[in-house]
């Protein structure tokens, strides 16, 4: 039997202290002392035992494991008789381990100290590189972090911290008015949208139902970092979310686009078209008409093209898409009435009634027709006296004041003087009169578009023909002088303007050098009349009788005044005492400016202008195709078709260009199926509600997309088609430096 090295007899075993940091230096020789070193590693041994006193004798207490009591025993004074020379204690394994532990802990503490408070602190405490977009803030923690400290135990504290951090994000990122709210819309809007959502086609997945109670806080106070997780590397995507994450707040989550996603209801149409263009009637009626078939479009690409980013399909411009058929209409081709817009007219006034009532109004043509134009009414609205007079006039007509009350007659006289004053102001002050009126109108600023390059000279020429003494009369009236009584009415045909006006064949020029050949008296006006206006009528009776008309030599013939401004501009008709504006063609600035301005203003005078311009019979026929939308408390005229709006992110996005190769022989009709039964035109006209509409096209079905958009094919994630941040989202605020005096930027 093999001999055992260790004694199993209890009193022959050495007493081991493995937990001590130091061991006796003689332990390896098999003769350790009984005391062992102290905790500092210093030898405490001086003898082999501590003798014990029994009675009057000292006895050796050396343990049996070290040989038992020695033969000669202790010294008489009680000291051990076997002195032990001191050893060099040895560190135990545990002692070494403790040393290593302290070393490692101190190293870690040093590292942490340097990391948190050292000069390279941000490098050390940063949990990883930020994305390239945020790289400049990598060393500036405070750009994105508020050092809040500690755990936020209360909901209020958590909300405060979230808001503080969100504020730092929104310092650079502009997410619109409701950027902090879910989907960038208000809670009420969100609820309204949820109510409109069609139900999911499958029950909510179990996981979604289980996760929903854990959803992150109230949706109105989401931290940006809920979805955007930074510090995951330079190339990491901080926008990606899984489909399940996208739906965790939704009331009716589903598995994915191919399983459970609700059927499209009205996609892509979310409003009526900005241009009233009926695809059905054009394709099925007009384009097949032999008169138009040769120039009619043969494919959608004739009028449509994709935006530069490949997203939206745009309508090509008027010249490419519409002009071939509709340019003439806009310019007045085949139009029965005047091609110009009535801007100013001397209305028919019951002068006799006014004079009989002791309200002389001075000079006024006898054969005026019609009433005050809407533009005149609008400008007179800016004159307090005229406005008061028009109110006082009430239902009475200026042309027939026979039954009017004296007050109405007084108001009518005041209106006549206001008209004269307006005309005089337009002559003497020109465009400024219109601009002042526009400036006084809330929400509008006058521009050259509104004046239509109005020339005071043109009106002055008209005034010489219609009311030669206007300026003197108005001046006298404003001084408070009463007008001179009208001369007795002449029966001469020359008293009526029509007698002496166009056509004016072979009218002699007043002066051989007057190339414009304005024969109108007085002669001095001939040099001033630079306008291509109708040759003015002979002066009314009073003027005509004042000066004998000189003999006119035969000269060139005038074309019709309207024809002379075929490219647009101002002209007049003396026979009706009317000043017209003929549109320059499509997108005429004068018409568009006035439509825009008056559409916004609900005042009757403005609406009268709008109604006149928006009439299907109005010159330019702008509103035959263009529409007006009610937007909040105002209205906006849609001059352009739908355009990409980089700052306005919709919920659903779609890029057309990548899908072009998939359309096959059907082309666009593969997805956009016309709906011949839709009453497209019914929702236009006077309606300004763009949300009430009938699209020319049936809604696109989910099946159109699902053939390709599956998880294993073209992908079917929520974020492929939907945006989270919607509305007016600018990626970044413009951080413009404030420039101080001297050019230094602050």
């Amino acid at each position: 039997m093999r001999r055992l090295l260790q004694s199993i007899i209890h009193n022959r075993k050495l007493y081991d202290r493995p937990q001590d940091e130091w061991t006796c230096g003689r332990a390896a020789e098999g003769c350790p002392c009984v005391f062992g070193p102290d905790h500092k590693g210093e030898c405490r041994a001086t003898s082999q035992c501590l003798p014990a006193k029994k009675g009057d004798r000292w006895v050796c207490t050396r343990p049996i494991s070290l040989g038992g009591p020695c033969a000669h025993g202790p010294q008489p004074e009680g000291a051990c008789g076997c002195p032990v020379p001191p050893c060099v204690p040895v560190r135990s394994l545990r002692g070494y381990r403790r040393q290593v532990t302290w070393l490692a802990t101190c190293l870690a503490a040093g590292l942490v100290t340097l990391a948190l408070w050292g000069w390279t602190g941000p490098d050390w405490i940063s949990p990883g590189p930020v994305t390239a977009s945020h790289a400049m803030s990598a060393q500036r923690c405070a750009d994105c972090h508020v050092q809040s400290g500690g755990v936020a135990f209360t909901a209020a504290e958590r909300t405060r911290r979230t808001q503080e951090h969100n504020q730092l994000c929104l310092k650079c990122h502009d997410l619109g008015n409701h950027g902090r709210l879910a989907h960038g819309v208000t809670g009420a809007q969100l609820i309204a949208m949820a109510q409109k959502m069609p139900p999911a086609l499958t029950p909510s997945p179990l996981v979604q139902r289980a996760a929903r109670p854990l959803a992150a806080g109230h949706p109105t106070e989401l931290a940006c970092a809920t979805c955007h997780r930074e510090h995951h590397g330079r190339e990491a995507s901080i926008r990606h979310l899984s489909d399940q994450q996208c739906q965790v707040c939704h009331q009716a989550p589903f598995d994915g686009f191919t399983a459970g996603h609700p059927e499209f209801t009205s996609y892509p149409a979310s409003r009526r078209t900005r241009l009233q263009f009926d695809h059905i009637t054009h394709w099925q009626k007009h384009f097949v008409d032999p008169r138009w078939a040769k120039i009619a479009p043969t494919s959608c690409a004739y009028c449509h093209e994709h935006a530069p980013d490949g997203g939206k399909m745009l309508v090509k411009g008027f010249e490419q898409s519409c002009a071939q058929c509709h340019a003439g209409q806009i310019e007045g081709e085949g139009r029965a009435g005047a091609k110009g817009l009535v801007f100013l007219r001397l209305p028919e006034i019951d002068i006799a009634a006014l004079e009989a009532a002791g309200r002389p109004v001075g000079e006024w043509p006898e054969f005026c027709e019609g009433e005050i134009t809407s533009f005149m009414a609008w400008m007179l609205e800016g004159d307090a006296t005229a406005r008061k007079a028009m109110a006082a006039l009430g239902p009475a007509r200026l042309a027939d004041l026979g039954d009017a009350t004296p007050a109405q007659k007084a108001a009518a006289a005041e209106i006549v003087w206001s008209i004269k004053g307006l005309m005089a102001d337009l002559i003497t002050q020109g465009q400024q009169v219109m601009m002042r009126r526009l400036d006084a109108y809330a929400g509008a600023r006058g521009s050259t578009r509104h004046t239509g390059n109005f020339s005071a000279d043109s009106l002055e020429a008209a005034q010489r023909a219609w009311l030669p003494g206007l300026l003197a009369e108005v001046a006298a009236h404003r001084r408070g002088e009463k007008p001179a009584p009208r001369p007795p009415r002449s029966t001469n045909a020359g008293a009526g303007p029509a007698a002496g006006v166009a056509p004016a064949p072979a009218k002699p020029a007043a002066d051989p050098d007057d190339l414009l050949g304005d024969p109108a008296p007085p002669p001095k006006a001939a040099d001033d009349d630079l306008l291509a206006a109708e040759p003015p009528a002979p002066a009314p009776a009073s003027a005509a009788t004042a000066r004998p008309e000189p003999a006119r030599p035969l000269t060139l013939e005038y074309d019709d005044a309207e024809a002379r401004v075929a490219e647009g501009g101002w002209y007049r008709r003396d026979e009706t005492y009317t000043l017209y504006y003929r549109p320059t063609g499509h997108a005429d600035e004068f018409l568009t400016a006035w439509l825009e301005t008056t559409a916004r203003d609900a005042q009757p005078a403005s609406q009268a202008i709008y109604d006149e311009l928006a009439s299907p019979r109005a010159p330019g026929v702008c509103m035959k195709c263009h529409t007006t939308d009610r937007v909040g408390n105002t209205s906006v005229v849609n001059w352009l078709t739908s355009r990409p709006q980089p700052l306005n992110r919709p919920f659903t996005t779609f890029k057309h260009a990548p899908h072009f190769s998939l359309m096959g022989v059907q082309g666009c009709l593969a997805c956009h199926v016309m709906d011949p039964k839709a009453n497209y035109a019914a929702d236009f006209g006077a309606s300004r509600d763009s949300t009430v509409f009938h699209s020319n096209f049936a809604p696109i079905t989910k099946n159109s997309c699902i053939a390709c958009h599956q998880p294993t094919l073209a992908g079917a994630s929520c974020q492929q088609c939907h945006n989270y941040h919607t509305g007016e989202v600018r990626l970044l605020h413009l951080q413009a430096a404030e420039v101080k005096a001297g050019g230094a930027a602050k």
Partner: protein
Amino acid sequence: MKTFLARRWLLALVTLAVGAGIVFGWQLGVIALRPMAIYSGWLLMALVLVLTFFNARKKLPFLPLLSASAWMQAHIYLGWLGCFVFVLHTGGRMPDGRLEVVLAAVFGVVAASGAFGLWLSRWLPPRLVRSGESLVYERIPSLRHQLANEVKEVVRRAEVEAQSSTLPDLYLRVLHPYFLRVPPLLAPLTGDARAAHHVRQELESARRYLNPAELNLAGELDELVEAKRNLDTQLAGQRLLKLWLFLHLPLTYAMLVLIAAHVWVALQYSHRL
């Protein structure tokens, strides 16, 4: 009483069940856009503290806090759970931040050394038992000294009684270095039978030159060589069973310091606490 195997299966299944529950909760939290990295961080820190307390528990034997064996079992399975939570916490990838890289590396070494220690504690003891007499590690140096003295005594007897220099020569050439020899650190893993085998071969070769008296002494030497082989085996094995703790324990405390810093940074800068 449960068998070791049954206990192992039971605890492994419990650990797996808890891990699966954590994964499910994690998945729900991720879907719900909760700050799961923070939650898993708290869980991981709690696990690390519990695991660390095992060491403290050994130093506080007077406290009635379950048996050391129960603590050991808890340490093992919570350790595995901690590794699992760590993977969840880091997203299964190496962190990018410097402090986090250091912390992750330290955690990895601690976890790996723990797993290595667990394996050693399962693999080595049976081999040590099979090797021969179990020795107290702290006594091995004195026992080696004792063996060396005994060999010296046998050789002296051979020199005196047999008047032969064969065994003394062998002693000087082979036995003396062998009995003073300390096995290398990784001897249990790399094998350390060559030295003893060589000594035995030398002793066997010398037998043909020994007289009967010397042959008896050679038999004693043979027993001492075997005792030295066992002593080396016990020393190397037990030393290795203690040496892995030189990684596991110091780095655990270093890790606690790093964890404290990590938590402080997270609390200071997090958007979502």
